[in-house]
Structures are given as structure tokens and as C-alpha cells.
């Protein structure tokens, strides 16, 4: 059973329930059972004894291990502030980023002075939630080669409830599409062209021959990234990125979960219909592309 409540509305006056998100308990004045009252407008959800209210839109409340896409707002002494759409800006410590070349050492004063060479204000980055502090502020880290600066692509913001936690958030849509999608759990989606196979194929052999595998891997990956960022995106690649973007927007309009399969399905349907990427968001086109809810 699900019902909709508004702030101040009594959900239940029976005892024995646990207070979840979006609710509070008020002692009744006549000494009866305490009441459970909603404090946001949304849908009541019950899991056994736990009652919570899920609002339609909410700020991002992180969980450890989440992949997020955010924008650097401030470069501080030893940390970056990153806007991830939460209550407060998330914190990315200098000690929790990868140094160039994958070096493992203590961060020195020189590193502090060079923080802007890693990330500067208004850079987009992908990162993982390392820790949630007592007051709800989020601490990030980018200590993996897959995280870091995002360049040469397109950012899209969707309601965060539509991005569920998946096994894989870095998605490469199969070759006919050839587009990389980064699904941030904070509702930010990054879309860019996939690395061409000939780039990765050529360099990985060189990496294997090297003695210091880890270092060279980091270096080659960095080189690849730089190459990717510097190579202009061609017209047909742009069109594919645009089509993927519009496929995600279509899913957003239908309020359907944004998953790799769903994106690929909408993409395929639009290609089948012979639609140009720019026409996908017109009213009639949207209706025909919307995923059917019953299957």
C-alpha cells in the first residue's frame, strides 16, 4: 500500500513503528500513543516496521561507494570543494587523488601549490564517495584510474531517483553506438565518445612489456585521456552523443529508470524510426520512443 502525504500530516498514530527519513515523532497531548508525522511531501514507504516518506525530488544524500559526477567550486589549502548536488559541497582531499604517473608518496607543500594543475575551479570530475561525515557532508576520493577530470563530452542533469545503483556506472554502449556514459548516482550523467579500439589496442601491449606495470599503466591511461581530450569529436560522433543524450532525456520524461539497456533500447528505436537526433524530443516523437511500462 502506498499513499501520498504532505508535511504535518499524521501517517499513523499506532505505536511500534520506526521513524525513517522524511518523518518525525510527536508525543500526543492527551498522553496517548505518539504520532508519526510526515515532514516532506511524498510517497509513504513501509519496510516491515520502518516507515519513511520518499520525496519526489531531493538533494543528494551520499552513500559510501557511490560514483558521483561533480563540479569543482573552490580550491582550498589541501582540499577541493566539489558541488555534487548535496546539502553542502563535497570535499576532495589532496591526499585522496592520484598523483601524475601513479606515484605513491606523501603529499608535499609543492603538491599543494600545484593543486590547480590537477583540478581547477569549474572542472567536471568523476569521483567515488569515500566517507559520509557526522553532519552529512560528503568526502570524495579519486584514487582509481577510472576517476578524474571529465573533458570533451556533455553533461546532463536528471532527477537522482532515476539513477539506481548498478554494478557498473561507467558504461560503454556497444560499437554501433560507440558512446561512453558515466551515470553519477547524484543524477548527473556524463556522455562522451568511447575510446576508439585502435588506441587502447595499440598501447596495452607496450604496457605489458614494461617492468613497472602499475606506473606505466597509469601513464598510458593519462596519455590516452589527454589524446581523447585533445582529439576533436567528429560530426557523426557528435550526432551519436546527441542521440544518446536525447535518449536519456526521453527516459527522464517517461520517469523511467536510466539503465544502459533502457538507453540502448530508446536509441535503437529512434534509429529504426529513421529519426534525426534533433527531432527526438518533439512531442509526437517522444510518445513513440517512450518505453512501454508493461514490458
Amino acid at each position, binding site marked *: 500500500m502506498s499513499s501520498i502525504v504532505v508535511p504535518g500530516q499524521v501517517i499513523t498514530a499506532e505505536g511500534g513503528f520506526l521513524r525513517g527519513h522524511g518523518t518525525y515523532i510527536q508525543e500526543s497531548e492527551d498522553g496517548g500513543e505518539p504520532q508519526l508525522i510526515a515532514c516532506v511531501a511524498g510517497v509513504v514507504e513501509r519496510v516491515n516496521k520502518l516507515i519513511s516518506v520518499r520525496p519526489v*525530488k531531493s538533494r543528494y544524500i551520499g552513500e559510501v561507494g557511490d560514483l558521483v559526477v561533480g563540479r569543482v567550486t573552490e580550491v582550498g589549502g589541501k582540499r577541493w570543494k566539489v558541488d555534487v548536488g548535496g546539502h553542502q559541497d563535497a570535499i576532495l582531499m589532496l591526499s585522496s587523488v592520484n598523483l601524475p604517473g601513479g606515484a605513491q608518496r606523501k603529499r608535499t607543500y609543492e603538491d599543494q601549490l600545484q593543486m590547480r594543475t590537477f583540478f581547477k575551479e569549474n572542472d567536471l570530475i568523476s569521483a567515488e564517495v569515500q566517507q559520509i561525515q557526522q553532519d552529512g557532508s560528503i568526502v570524495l576520493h579519486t584514487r582509481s584510474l577510472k576517476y578524474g577530470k571529465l573533458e570533451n563530452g556533455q553533461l546532463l542533469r536528471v532527477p537522482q531517483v532515476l539513477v539506481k545503483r548498478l554494478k557498473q556506472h561507467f558504461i560503454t554502449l556497444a560499437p554501433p553506438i560507440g558512446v561512453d556514459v558515466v551515470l553519477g548516482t547524484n543524477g548527473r550523467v556524463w556522455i562522451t565518445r568511447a575510446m576508439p579500439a585502435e588506441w587502447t589496442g595499440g598501447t596495452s601491449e607496450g604496457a605489458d612489456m614494461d617492468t613497472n606495470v602499475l606506473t606505466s599503466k597509469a601513464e598510458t591511461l593519462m596519455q590516452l585521456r589527454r589524446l581523447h581530450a585533445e582529439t576533436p569529436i567528429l560530426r557523426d560522433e557528435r550526432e551519436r552523443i546527441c542521440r544518446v543524450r536525447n535518449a536519456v532525456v526521453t527516459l527522464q520524461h517517461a520517469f523511467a529508470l536510466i539503465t544502459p539497456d533502457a538507453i540502448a533500447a530508446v536509441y535503437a528505436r529512434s534509429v529504426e524510426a529513421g529519426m534525426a537526433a534533433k527531432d527526438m524530443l518533439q512531442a509526437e516523437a517522444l510518445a513513440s520512443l517512450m518505453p512501454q511500462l508493461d514490458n
Partner: protein
Amino acid sequence: MLNCYTPRRAPPAAVAVEEQTSADSSRKRPEHRGDGRKASELRRVYLDLGVVSQASGSAYLELDHTKVICAVYGPHAQSMDTAFSEEGQLKCDLRMAPFAQPKRSEVRGQTDEERELSATLQQALEASVRLDLLTKTAVDVYVTVLAADGGVLGAAITCASLALANASIELFDLVAACTAACADGQVLLDPTAQEEAAAGGSVLVAVMPSSREVTQWRQRGRLPSAQAAAAVELCMDGCAGVATMMRARLLAQVDK
């Protein structure tokens, strides 16, 4: 026909206003007020949500010719220029549009009246917001009065509360506010600017409707205690009416 938008005629011109007030005082107790309402009748209320796309939450409220729009931003990190507080901060800013009143205002920046209204608005809302959950953050509430025809503060409080709810900020309860004016020994609910000007005193009450807790009570002018009590009672009834409409609008929004 609840909450349905139909544009209304412009308010009567200044000359007509004078005639009407003199006519009103000659008849001791008119059955109906200038706009055909009974003494205890609210003006037609129109509510809308999500009217400002970039804001976290927003609302628009119309009481006939009083029109108010409110946008809520945040919660976000507290700015450096204010004293740091562990609990959440609620910042309210009310401004009258230059064209809000019949006479165009030429003042630059915020007037004293606007500052006072902002402070009262903040007091009225603060009690309803769960600031304990918004540690180290701030919420900004911006209210713009597009047209002022009486009951501006009440409209601003109601509208801002809806905008907060629309932004999914955790609230103990909604806040509904209502004004009543006393003129010629009669208590008039939700007065227009014309009625407010003619009245000897007025009362504003803001309540959290579920618990019937009063968050703001403002009284102006001279009022005999019996009349003041009657005005508060009338306001409470008016607030209950406004609250019903607020809830209905929020439910409709979530359902969509």
C-alpha cells in the same frame, strides 16, 4: 472549481475608491463588501508550484489582485559573510516589485518596510523548518510581491511555506497565514488594500494547521479586546481554509 485560473478585472481606479468608502460609511453594516464578499469570506485563492525552473522549489500565490511569487534555493553551504552556525540558517528576502502598488516606487534597494516584512516572514517560517537536520547549511527564500492589494505578508508567508515544501525541505508542518481587519465595528477577513486603509486596526495570524500552533501574530492599530479576539478566531478559520488548498495543491503535484 477549486484552484482554477481566470483573470480578473483590474482593481477600481483611485477616484472610484474614494466614492466607495464614503458610500460604505453611510450604510452602517453593508451585507456585502466592495467586491461582493461576505465579512468572513476569503478572496479567491490561486496556487501554483514549480514556477521557477532553476530554483530548488518555488510557488506562486494569488488572492485576487495580490500576487506573490516565491523561490527557494538550497540547502547549500553557508556563505562566508555571515556568522557560522551549527544549525541550519533560513534567510528570507521579501521585495516589492516597483509596479506592485498603484503608485510606482522609485526607491532603489530594499525599503525599511520590506526589511521589516522580511524579518517577520523569517520568524513565521523558522518555527516550521527542521533546522536541526540542516546542519551547517543555509536555505534562501526569495519572495517577490508582484501586485499588492492587501494581505501581502500573509500571502508571502503562505507562498513561501509552499515553496519550501516544493523544495522537499523537511518541515514540521506547513504554515498558513491570514489577515483580518476591523472597520466600523465589523471584522473583515482577508481585506483588500482599500479595506485595510479604511480599517482602524488589523491582525495577522500564521499557524501550522495540523497542530494549530501559532508561529506569528501581528497586530496593528487600535483594537478593542473583544474585536481582537474575534479577528484572531476569524483568522484561524481563514488559515484552515488556506491550508486545505495548500495541501490539495501539494498532493496534486506529488501525484503527477
